[in-house]
């Protein structure tokens, strides 16, 4: 019996080497950083899909989010990268972990056939669409580090948020939406008084 876990992690290591090699071959040292971020993103997502334990999946998402932040910083969007780390890694992931801790573990839920079949079908589909897109779109050939450095600083983003002719309306709408969503989340998740007076184990744990 082959140890599937070992096979999976060997494949993950191969993927990491391949991504680093791809980056190094196409852009030198800057490509190495790209390869590292791509490894974090794709490796984290694959681990999340693969692992039986929900806790491990949730923690592997941390790699995905951090890798995305690395991409944003590589692309010159420092502010978005920092916001990504603060909000995703610090906020959303903690929220998801709360959800994980409040629900029961179900180790038998992952079916190899379903995961493998899904990966196969989705891989073929994405490869086909990518081939079509790559053949029909005229891509920008210049690598990012040869473009002029982006002139937008965090200060410009802050000004754009409150400038009347730019993003002030979406900004205020986002503020209202966050307030409504968080109040609604508390309202939905609260326990009613009847829950405390009724059978304590009603949820069928």
């Amino acid at each position: 019996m082959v140890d599937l876990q070992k096979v999976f992690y060997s494949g993950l290591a191969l993927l990491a080497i391949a991504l680093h090699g791809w980056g190094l071959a196409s852009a030198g040292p800057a490509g190495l950083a790209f390869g590292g971020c791509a490894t974090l993103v794709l490796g984290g997502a694959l681990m999340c899909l693969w692992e039986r334990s929900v806790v491990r999946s949730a923690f592997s998402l941390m790699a995905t989010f951090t890798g995305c932040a690395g991409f944003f910083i590589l692309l010159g969007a420092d502010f978005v990268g920092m916001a990504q780390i603060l909000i995703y890694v610090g906020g959303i992931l903690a929220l998801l972990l709360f959800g994980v801790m409040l629900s029961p573990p179900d180790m038998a839920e992952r079916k190899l056939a379903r995961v493998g079949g899904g990966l196969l079908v989705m891989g073929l589909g994405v490869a086909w669409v990518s081939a079509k897109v790559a053949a029909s779109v005229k891509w920008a050939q210049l690598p990012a580090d040869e473009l002029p450095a982006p002139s937008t600083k965090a200060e410009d983003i802050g000004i754009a948020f409150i400038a009347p002719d730019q993003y002030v309306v979406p900004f205020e709408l986002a503020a209202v939406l966050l307030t409504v969503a968080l109040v609604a989340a508390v309202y939905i998740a609260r326990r009613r008084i009847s829950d405390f007076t009724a059978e304590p184990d009603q949820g069928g744990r």
Partner: protein
Amino acid sequence: MALGAYVAVSAALFALGLVTIAARRNILYVLFGIEMILNAANINFVAFNRFNGDGMDGRMFAIFVIILAAAEAAVALAIVLNVYHLFGSTKPSDADLLRE
């Protein structure tokens, strides 16, 4: 790296998110998959913004997507807790009643 590399990684992340939603029978994995898909979209926004002149629209879009993702995660977590409380299960297919 050129634009195509970023778009390729983003497409792969999107596919993995979709597989996670479809292949794992657990509400929490649906949330994980949605977060992956939102991140894939964000990579595209920022990458196209970088390679398309000196604007900042793509970056602003990415920030708004992150804000929406935070709101979505909070509400979705509340729904997950309620579904588990009402149905005693975290399988999406078990939550099939609107009345209590």
